[in-house]
């Protein structure tokens, strides 16, 4: 069993006020695929990960990670200190 791949897709989508459908159309997949990705039910292929990275204009490692992402609240608290 492969290890799960965590992602920031819900946050990035919310930041840009994108629907799943709009993001799916932009990267050429079914909107359900975006749902499965966000829930962690599916790990993307390299091709799809690169397409998403290109679409958001961010490096792949900012969107996907093998370790869980630190919650934004914790990052903000640490910066505040």
């Amino acid at each position, binding site marked *: 069993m492969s290890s799960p791949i965590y992602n920031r897709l819900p946050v990035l989508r919310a930041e840009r006020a994108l*629907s799943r*459908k709009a993001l799916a159309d932009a990267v050429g*997949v079914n*909107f*359900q695929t975006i749902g499965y*990705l966000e*829930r962690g039910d599916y790990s993307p*292929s390299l091709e799809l990960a690169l397409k998403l990275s290109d679409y958001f204009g961010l490096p792949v490692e900012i969107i996907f990670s093998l370790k869980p992402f630190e919650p934004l609240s914790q990052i903000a608290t640490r910066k505040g200190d």
Partner: protein
Amino acid sequence: MSFYFRTPKGRIPNRSRAAMRLATGLTLGGYPAGALIMLNSGLAGEGVPAFIASVTGLGLIALGVFAFFYIAPSYMQRIVGEQVCELDDLERDLRQKAFAFAYHVLTGLVAAAIFYLAVANDETRLTLWSPQSYEHWNTIFWGVLLYAFTLPTAYLAWTMPDIEPELAEEEDDTIPVRKPGVRWWLWGLIVAGGIAGFILARVIT
């Protein structure tokens, strides 16, 4: 090998995972059960009992076939039956897994069936039933075809994560991207195959 029925407007009807599990179960269980009952209806005696057994078998077969037509236009059947170029990343991945599963099950079944036939035809050992008539082989042929079409979908019905209600609602708002064309060559091939099979059966008998 699989089969997918595109609806005329290109919309994919909503089928819940539970409904798909039930439908694939009915197809995979109903057809062989019905065929066995129908082919062995003579064991129930003569007259009314044999007729009831025969009708029950036919009913189960019909249930299995109707369940298949319920599956045919579904999203899961689209994953296993649609042209690969029409599928996305996730769907291609699921298709590979479903085909791998179906391959293992079908090869296991075929190997078991050949082993059984070898034993059944060896007169020095056990006396077992083996298919003799055209009716028997016809039933087996359609059963294998139905299994080949349904096994990958059954795998998806039992393993694919359920679609969240919010996703299903989002789907309702979507408009089909394109209206698919009818694959006339495929239907032509099916009809030609049916006619050829019919003529061949007449010539042989």
